C-alpha cells in the first residue's frame, strides 16, 4: 500500500513535469476577443445607428415642415373665396348692374352675350322655322289657344322661287350667329 502511494506521488511529480504544455497565445487572444465582444454590447455601433437614424428622421421632419409651410402660403389665394365676396357686394345693386358685374367677373374665354338670346325665340312650327313678331317668350307662346289663328307668319324657308327668298330670316340668322 505504501509502495502504491509512493508510486502515485512519483507519477504526480512526473506528470507535473509535463505541464509545460500551454494554451497557444493566439487561442487566448481569439477567445478573450470573442468574450470581450459578447461582454461589451456594441455601444459605438449603437451610437452610429442613433446618429444615422436621427439624421434620417430630422431630414424627413424637415421635408414635412417645408411642405406644410408651402401649403399654408398657397391656401389663402383661393379664387372661390374672392368671387364670393365680390358677388355679395353686387347683390345690393340693381339687376342690370348685377348682370354686368357677373359678366365682368367672367373670364374672357367665356361666351359674353350682349343681348338675351331668350328674347329671340325661334320655334319650329310644322317643320318651318319662324320668328315671333312680338317679344313674347316661350311661356306666352305655349299659352296660346289652339283655335286662335296664329299671328306668326308661316313661310317656307326655302321657297320654290329662289328670287323671292325672304331676307328677314337671313338677317335673324346673321344677327344670331354673328354674335
Amino acid at each position, binding site marked *: 500500500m505504501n509502495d502504491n502511494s509512493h508510486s502515485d506521488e512519483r*507519477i504526480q511529480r*512526473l*506528470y507535473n513535469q509535463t505541464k509545460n504544455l*500551454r494554451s497557444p497565445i493566439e*487561442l*487566448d487572444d*481569439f477567445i478573450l476577443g*470573442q468574450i470581450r465582444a*459578447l*461582454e461589451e454590447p456594441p455601444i459605438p455601433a449603437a451610437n452610429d445607428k442613433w446618429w444615422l437614424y436621427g439624421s434620417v428622421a430630422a431630414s424627413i421632419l424637415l421635408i414635412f415642415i417645408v411642405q406644410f409651410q408651402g401649403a399654408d402660403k398657397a391656401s389663402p389665394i383661393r379664387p372661390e373665396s374672392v368671387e364670393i365676396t365680390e358677388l355679395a357686394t353686387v347683390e345690393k345693386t340693381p339687376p342690370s348692374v348685377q348682370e354686368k358685374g357677373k359678366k365682368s367677373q367672367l373670364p374672357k374665354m367665356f361666351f359674353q352675350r350682349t343681348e338675351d338670346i331668350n328674347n329671340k325665340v325661334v320655334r319650329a312650327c310644322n317643320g318651318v322655322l319662324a320668328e315671333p313678331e312680338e317679344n313674347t317668350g316661350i311661356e306666352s307662346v305655349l299659352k296660346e289657344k289652339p283655335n286662335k289663328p296664329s299671328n306668326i307668319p308661316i313661310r317656307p324657308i326655302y321657297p320654290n322661287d329662289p328670287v323671292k327668298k325672304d331676307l328677314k330670316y337671313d338677317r335673324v340668322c346673321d344677327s344670331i350667329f354673328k354674335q
Partner: protein
Amino acid sequence: MGLSDEQLKVRCRSGDYAAFEQLYHRHKNPLYRFIYRQCADEELTKDIVQDVWLSIHRACGSYVPSAKFTTWLYRIAHNRVIDYYRRSRNGVPISYDDSFAEEQWLNMENSNEPEQIIQSAQETERLLSAIESLQEAQREVALLHLEMGFSVSEIANIMQSNPETTKSRLRYALKKIREQVSL
C-alpha cells in the same frame, strides 16, 4: 490573496470582464492540457477549448455559487469531449459506460498493447504514452486526478457517473501507468 474562483465567477455574472479574464488565465493551461491529452489533435483541442469558454460565459447566470467552479468548468469540458466522441465515427467509447464491468478491464489489462505503444526511454514520455494508451474513460479520470487533483467524488460529479465506477477507473488507470512507467 486574490479572489477565489467562485468570487470571480459571481463577479462575471454582473458583467465584470476583468474577473472573467482572471478566471481564464488561471485555468486556461490545465483545461487545454486536459482536452488535448484526450483528443491528441491541436486544432480540435482549440475548437473544444473555445467552445468550453464560450459556454462558461454564456452560462454565467446558471452558475450556483455554492458549487466549486473547477467542478463546473470541467463538467462542461467533459460534456464537450463527449460531444466530440459522439460526432466521431466510432461514437462515444464503451469505456464511458458505467456497466463496463471490472472484469472486462482486467482482461483488457492483460493485453500487450500498452507495451507496444511505449517506446520512449524518458519517464515523462513514458507517462504520457501510458496515459494515451488508457481507455478513454480511464484516461479522463486519470487526467482529472493528475491535472487538477480532483477527488473520486469530485470526478464522479464532473463525469456524472457512479462514484464506485469512478473509483475503479482511477485505480486501474494508476495501476497501468505504474506498470508502463516501471515505477
